[in-house]
């Protein structure tokens, strides 16, 4: 299913998220099961199914990584079940360095400072990747799309790191 079509939005990476949220509310008002509380069982069933699709579409388009993946899948590149890994050694070195810093949070004297620093470096790096993503993922050139797939893999690494940072932060309290 093409979620851009479902939300009547043009298929671009730099999405107007406010507009997306507005379309989402309009769709929900139309299909949500609560609008069918007095309808027949069949209408209720279809309402649940359609609302599940709308929710899934919104979630996909809302998150940059999922949105990029969806755009690639619409162009025939499916990343959801792949096992390819990132081969960029410089990137992997950087990952290892960051992981060591995460480990250090527990033991260091000023964990708040280190956490802040990591938040900033992660955000900066994500911004760098995102800046390249927009053009690549919108392209029709096969090589550009494969490069976009590589960026998505890197963003997934970053998302994992971000999760671990949040967990390390939690562990402090």
């Amino acid at each position, binding site marked *: 299913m093409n979620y851009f079509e*479902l*939300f*009547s*939005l*043009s298929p*671009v990476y*730099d*999405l*107007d998220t406010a*507009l997306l*949220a507005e*379309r989402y*509310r*309009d*769709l*929900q*008002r*139309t*299909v*949500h*099961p*609560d609008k069918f*509380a*007095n*309808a*027949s*069982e*069949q*209408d209720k069933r*279809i*309402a*649940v*199914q*359609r*609302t*599940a*699709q709308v*929710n*899934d579409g*919104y*979630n996909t388009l809302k998150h940059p990584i999922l949105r990029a993946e969806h755009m690639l899948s619409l162009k025939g590149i499916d990343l959801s079940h792949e096992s390819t890994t990132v081969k960029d050694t410089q990137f992997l070195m950087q990952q290892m360095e960051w992981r060591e810093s995460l480990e250090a949070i527990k033991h260091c004297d000023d964990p708040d400072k280190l956490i802040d620093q990591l938040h900033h470096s992660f955000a900066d790096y994500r911004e760098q990747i995102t800046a390249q993503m927009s053009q690549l993922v919108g392209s029709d050139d096969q090589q550009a799309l494969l490069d976009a797939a590589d960026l998505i893999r890197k963003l997934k690494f970053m998302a994992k790191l971000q999760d671990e940072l*949040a967990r390390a932060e*939690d562990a402090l*309290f």
Partner: protein
Amino acid sequence: MALLQIAEPGQSAAPHQHRLAVGIDLGTTNSLVAAVRSGVADTLADETGRHALASVVRFTQEGVQVGVEAERYSAQDPLNTVVSVKRFMGRSLDDIQAQDQSLPYQFSASTNGLPLFNTAGGQHNPIQISAEILRPLVERAEKTLGGTLEGVVITVPAYFDDAQRQGTKDAAGLLGVKVLRLLNEPTAAAIAYGLDSGQEGMIAIYDLGGGTFDISILRLNKGVFEVMATGGDSALGGDDFDHALAQHLQEHWQLSSLTAQERRALLIESRRVKEALTEDDSTLAHLQLADGRQLQQTVTKAQFDTLIEPFVKKTIASCRRALRDAGIKADEVLETVMVGGSTRVPLVRQRVAEFFGRPPLTSIDPDRVVAIGAAIQADILVGNKPDSDLLLLDVLPLSLGIETMGGLVEKVVSRNTTIPVARAQEFTTFKDGQTAMAFHVVQGERELVADCRSLARFTLKGIPPMAAGAAHIRVTFQVDADGLLSVTAMEKSSGVQVTIQVKPSFGLTDEEIGSMLKDSMAHAKEDIERRMAAEQQVEAARVLESLSAALAKDSDLLSAEEANAIEQGMAHLVQTAAQGDADAIEKAIEALDNASQTFAAKRMDNSIRLALKGQSVDNI
């Protein structure tokens, strides 16, 4: 002879008829029923002017007592008097006894591990006991409003898992009451406040009741309440404050063992002390022992605060997690709403104010705000406010997963996903000619099955025999707007729909509900059949009415052939419904459903197009 109701085609017979529906707050300690009357939502009182019904049920040989009459006996007859039954909902007896060995009840286990309370009035499970609490509330509402209820909205803690939600819905089912929606308590509170103050932005709802704690982060925008994140603890509440204080007093008085009566009396006294300390800086605790000894001890607010601090801290940790899940910071929260009697405890208000950096909202009675919100939602769902913009988008409170090799959990839907949601997973056979496959569905955040709550086990049967790995079985897990799970499965290459038997781990099977329904009716078999036929006739009327309206509006979406099939199905259903055989009506409805499935889907897609009409694909 009955008079014919005359109405224009496509219009309901009585367009201005007010349909009766109420909101019910089925609480751990107290329960309430509320309704919208003349546009105002408020709780309904009983004959004596009391709004709250104590959630206490006593079973004796003479019958069942509920509320204050039962509560009066809770100290002297603890064995037959069940308090806080909500804490037992959807739990196994093992779970319950592992958590608290000091319960003053005699339990036995049902065949699938549900707790049964052995009382002088027989054996009862938590679902039946909850139904006893609902019964007087429904009766009160029907008497006050002067008619039969068309439906109810029942509130549940946002953190309730599937078994707990299903149990709550089944309790209403035992009374033959239609549940329009299970509504999360915090969302209900937000409705009550949201409509009064017209807020737009992020709202945190801190709900500390007798036995449960919920924190929800909601975004309000143009009438849409979107739950961004929810968290909490389904076994943490004001009762824990009472227990902590009781334990403190017991240790102070050096009482090594207590009788069931003494224990109950100590708990009741602890609760009184807790309530006194919301106003006073210190108070005197009393206890009379069975041997006649009188004990007393001064308890200061500072002592009490120290005892409950660990529980309050736990709630604040949940708040921090919920904010992170919602992707916002504490200072982005516009308002904090307080719900539940335990938010009257000063330390709780103080800690919440510190964490969110602003004093919380407390203008609506925290004990009644949930029921009031539920009444507003019930009024809308039953159809009294067709132009209402209000819409609630809830989330799944706990991740759903399935057991894989080695007792590990594979997540299928993660928590805080907006519901309804559907997720498909593909599985294959590992033996040649394998025709069945067993699944174990769990709910929780941990990686090991043993650390999660078991929801259901089911077996897929009727897989066509093939070589190992050749069958592709697509299993779809669907969670509806009430947060309830259903599972469907299909073998892809052959298109064979696989049958699923779901056996809820800590709930009732359909058969058990059926037999409990029969037990609950003092009448003969014919009565049950008559009632089932009546229910099918109501559903048939609903199907016919909605299809007629749909045909009047959208018949252009149909080919002549499709229209013909639907019309024949409708005629058949009209005829069958008149004969009053429940099974036959059910079959006729199913046949009509099949004939009109494409039409229903087309109409839904058409309305999606209309909703976004005039909003042509944008160019950025």
